[in-house]
């Protein structure tokens, strides 16, 4: 009866911005990104990619509350770059990785199908 609608998990409300960034006022080169209507799937993916970057001093994510379907990603970088550039770079890396994964998968499926109809 009072349970929230399930589609609130993934439907972005009208007028809401998918991504917002709040610069930290106390620590240099640090920011908090908030992504609406995402969960650990994207949060963990981005965080692990950020950690692979040597310019990142700190990268972590959390979902503030189970009823708030948002991901907060906190990033701190060194002076070589800034948080926005780092996040954009890491997401570009992930996009490229999944693109090559998709191409590789399609190619493998075609190859497998051509081998005398493997379907059982």
């Amino acid at each position, binding site marked *: 009866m009072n349970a929230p609608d*399930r*589609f609130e*998990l*993934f*439907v972005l409300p009208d007028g809401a*911005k*998918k*991504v917002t*960034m709040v*610069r930290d006022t106390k620590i240099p080169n640090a920011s908090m990104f908030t*992504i609406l209507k*995402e969960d*650990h*799937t*994207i949060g*963990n*993916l981005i*965080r*692990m*990619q950020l950690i*692979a*970057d*040597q*310019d990142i001093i700190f990268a972590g994510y959390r979902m503030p509350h189970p009823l708030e379907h948002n991901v907060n990603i906190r990033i701190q970088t060194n002076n*070589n*770059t800034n948080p*926005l550039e780092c*996040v*954009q*770079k*890491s*997401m*570009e*890396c*992930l*996009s*490229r*990785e*999944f*693109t*090559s*994964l*998709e191409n*590789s*998968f*399609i190619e*493998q*499926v075609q*190859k*497998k*199908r051509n081998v005398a109809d*493997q*379907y*059982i």
Partner: protein
Amino acid sequence: MSQTVSQLTRQPELEILEIKNDSIIFILSNTDISVANALRRVMIAEVPTMCIDLVEFESNNSVLCDEFIAHRLGLIPLVSDNIDKFCYTRDCSCSDRCDQCSVELRLNVKCTENRPRDVTSSDLLSQNSAVIPVSSQVTSSNSEQEIPIVKLRRGQEIKLRAIAKKGVGKEHAKWSPSCVATYQFQPIIVLNQNRIDELTDQQKEEWVGSCPTKVYSYSPHQSTQQVTIEDPLRCVYCLECKKKAESFGKPDLVHLEQKQDKFIFTVESSGALKPEDIVLYAIQIIKRKLTDIQGQMAEGML
């Protein structure tokens, strides 16, 4: 200086071990566990399929009430190979529903015989020939069983109209296309043959038998290498073999490890989508998410 995008981008490798009508097994390697886990999560909860979501009863004097039958109808997997052609009802421009965002199925059965009649998924007639119950598909190796919905006695009748809609497993598990979507690590098992040779024959047999999934094999007829690894993939890391080895006073008899950048995926489909399509849709959905977020970032941040 800063690492470039090219330097940070991994080149994942993929190898498909097996494709069947309802399952696929493949190896994903040279990538991070977060990528494998994102893929797994999306395959389970974010790949869309068609499922019955609304039921309008005109007549039902069977022994089951309306809600019970509606729930059972919702759990029948429907063929969703054309899922890309449909849009979500909440995104559709129509006022209530239309052919673009829903499919109507009808059920109209009356029992006129003396014996009870089974109402099954084959009695569901679809307005769209591309969206039918999976069990009603005509395939070359058709051993599909019809899904029973309700039993009717003589004189009982059920007449209803069911509306199938596009949805994702995040909203209700009935929309999930995967029965199973898991990955396991490649186990690395190293046997210390010198330590094994120090065991008596009975101890070797006991040690091999300590493994509940029979990873090891024992061949007493061979003069050397009597104990070997039969199938490392069966290992479930219960460490029973290590405990047994320690009880024999030989803790270094076996070494177990997981290869942390190689993932063996098993995806089993409910039939709504082909297993390779599930994986492909999952990859595309993750790409779309990343692209959406990148696009939002490009538009004035702050």
